[in-house]
């Protein structure tokens, strides 16, 4: 038995990824092993992960499968990085359907010249977040493209989970009389990224709200047997999410501006740039619909959870018009909250 564990020396040459690292030869193998598989430790050595779970065998259980690509710039920002979002985003897309997330794949498109240290950081974030969320990254891929063909690194994660037989969460379940709940403040991620991009030369202490919400979802499901549907509000903000759900359910939704809460820096950011916080991106914001009579117990349960401390009812579901989202303003007036058109551009005017 060795008294010491030999330290592994890096076989990688240089600080940056070159086209050789995508060539399929030794350099690629070394990159994959050192940077990716040594950390992720996927099961087996084959081109595919071979997996089984008892839960799939339960009659009425469903396989849930989702995929998402992540191209955020800058790749590292306060509160996270592209790797963290890549795990959270896919875990959340499974969890909001009532699935228990199990396995993720991770594919990387790497720009020639990307710093290897950046890749290591991203992989570490993914590993940390995956463990936190209770999922395993079991298979993946890397490609290297010429300088200029990608922005440092793009990540695609696909995720698989199991929806237990008793669960059927879907937007179409939402009906008039239901209430809409969010788990906390809005817009942290979008505002953080805007500041981090630097092109407006604005600085704040904000951090992204990027987080895995499967734990919170399980809490909600346990507390609210009548839970209709849930989504995580990402690009396009809470407004876009509500519009999609209203459309799918053929109902109207009215939210109350006085219930929406923002960190004061997010408010400041919106005021300076003339942005509407309803459309700011989130990465850890849950929007869910429950029957009115279950609202109190849902909130009580959410507020016990670290990611639901500021959970609040933000609105109610109306008969119609179908697909229309409106908001009672601070002033008691009403305004439409339409789907976002294009990208929200900072106003000056």
């Amino acid at each position, binding site marked *: 038995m060795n008294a010491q564990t030999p330290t592994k020396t890096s076989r990688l040459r240089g600080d940056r990824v070159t086209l050789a690292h995508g060539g399929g030869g030794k350099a690629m193998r070394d990159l994959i092993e050192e940077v990716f598989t040594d950390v992720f430790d996927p099961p087996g050595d084959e081109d595919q992960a071979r997996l089984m779970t008892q839960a799939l065998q339960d009659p009425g259980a469903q396989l849930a499968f989702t995929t998402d690509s992540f191209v955020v710039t800058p790749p590292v920002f306060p509160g996270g990085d592209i790797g963290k979002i890549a795990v959270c985003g896919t875990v959340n897309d499974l969890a909001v359907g009532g699935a228990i997330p199990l396995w993720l794949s991770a594919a990387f498109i790497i720009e020639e010249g990307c710093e290897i240290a950046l890749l290591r950081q991203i992989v570490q974030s993914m590993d940390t977040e995956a463990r936190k969320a209770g999922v395993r990254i079991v298979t993946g891929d890397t490609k290297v493209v010429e300088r200029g063909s990608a922005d440092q690194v793009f990540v695609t994660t696909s995720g698989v989970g199991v929806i237990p037989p008793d669960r059927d969460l879907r937007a179409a379940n939402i009906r008039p009389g239901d209430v809409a709940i969010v788990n906390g403040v809005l817009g942290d991620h979008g505002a953080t990224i805007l500041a981090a991009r630097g092109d407006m*030369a604005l600085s704040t202490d904000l951090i992204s709200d990027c987080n895995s919400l499967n734990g919170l979802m399980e809490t909600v499901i346990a507390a609210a047997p009548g839970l209709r549907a849930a989504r995580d509000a990402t690009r396009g903000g809470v407004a876009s999410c509500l519009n999609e759900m209203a459309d799918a359910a053929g109902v109207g939704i009215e939210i109350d501006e006085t219930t929406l809460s923002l960190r004061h820096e997010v408010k400041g950011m919106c005021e300076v740039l003339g942005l509407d916080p309803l459309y700011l991106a989130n990465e850890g914001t849950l929007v869910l619909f429950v029957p009115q009579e279950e609202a109190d117990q849902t909130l009580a349960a959410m507020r016990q959870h670290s990611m639901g401390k500021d959970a609040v009812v933000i609105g109610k579901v109306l008969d119609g018009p179908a697909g229309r989202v409106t908001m009672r303003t601070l002033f*008691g*007036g*009403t305004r*439409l909250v339409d789907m976002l*058109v*294009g990208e929200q*551009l900072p*106003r000056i*005017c």
Partner: protein
Amino acid sequence: MRYVEEFRDPMAAKAVLAAIETVIDQIGATRDKPVHIMEVCGGHTHAIFRYGLDKLTPPGIEFIHGPGCPVCVLPMSRIDECVQIAERPEVIFTTFGDAMRVPGTRKSLMQAKADGADIRMVYSPLDAMELARRNPDREVVFFGLGFETTTPSTALSIQQAAREKLNNFSVFCNHITVPPPIKALLDDPHMVLDGFVGPGHVSMVIGVHPYDFIAEDYGKPIVVAGFEPLDLLQSVLMVLRQIQDGRAEVENQYARVVPDAGNPISMAAIEDVYEARPTFEWRGLGEIDASGLRIRQAYQAYDAEEKFGVGYGAGPRLVKEPEGCACGQVMTGRIKPFQCEQYGKGCTPEMPLGALMVSSEGACAAYYQYGATEAAE
């Protein structure tokens, strides 16, 4: 947020609204015989719809949306010229976000960017100058857009560029001034206007006296207003009280920001760098004398029109509006957005025909975004 939230207090709003209702009753204004109040500035139009003030104020007030949206009044030919400059490989074209989606005859700046032009959104002309410092081998052009609120910022930037000899920086000047189009509207026999809510931020630069002619020569009240909902409501109340009293005065509701005399440093910078063009084309209003600014000869090294041979007078003027586009009529308050045939059909924010639907302060965009698709109840 200091100096903002106090002016958004819903309780205070109720009181002002009640006072407004009282005066409206007393002067006998109704939906069929309303008081016509023009809010000149696009920022005010936006605020009215964001806070639902059009629905909260009584039907006896009709808001006529004025031409104070500098993106909206921009003739399509100017966008074409922007695209022309931006398509040059050596140019980094910088602009405020507002202008990105305005359609030109060929394309918008957003489309030109997708086609490969180096077009970048900036928050400030200072950022454009920084880009010029960091990219000495490129020509950085800043799209100088806006009324007198923004004109000092580009004037000061040009002065700074001259001091530093930042010769790869230039401004494509499209600054316009507020008083001339107001006069043009007042001279229009078809316009029915009883009073004005005046542009608060333009006034922090030029002061309140440039509006004296509105009260003295045309006998209409004007109240210079701030941008928070309480500012707007209080200003509307002040206009109504003037009408009730038979007064026509220039009043300053936004005194916390607007000195009556304006800002001498800003005005001096504008005077130093810019001069009035003899005429300038306004979408929907045609050519108006002495309403547009150009860079003086002393600073021609920083004038993109000189550098790139484009600009007012250099190309064909008065590009025809696209078929069915009624921006001109909406912008001068002759019709409401939803009365335009194309509104919501051939003209939407995704596929705009004209600037009013694309600029965040255009009346059509405000109506569309906040849902004022039919006349207020």
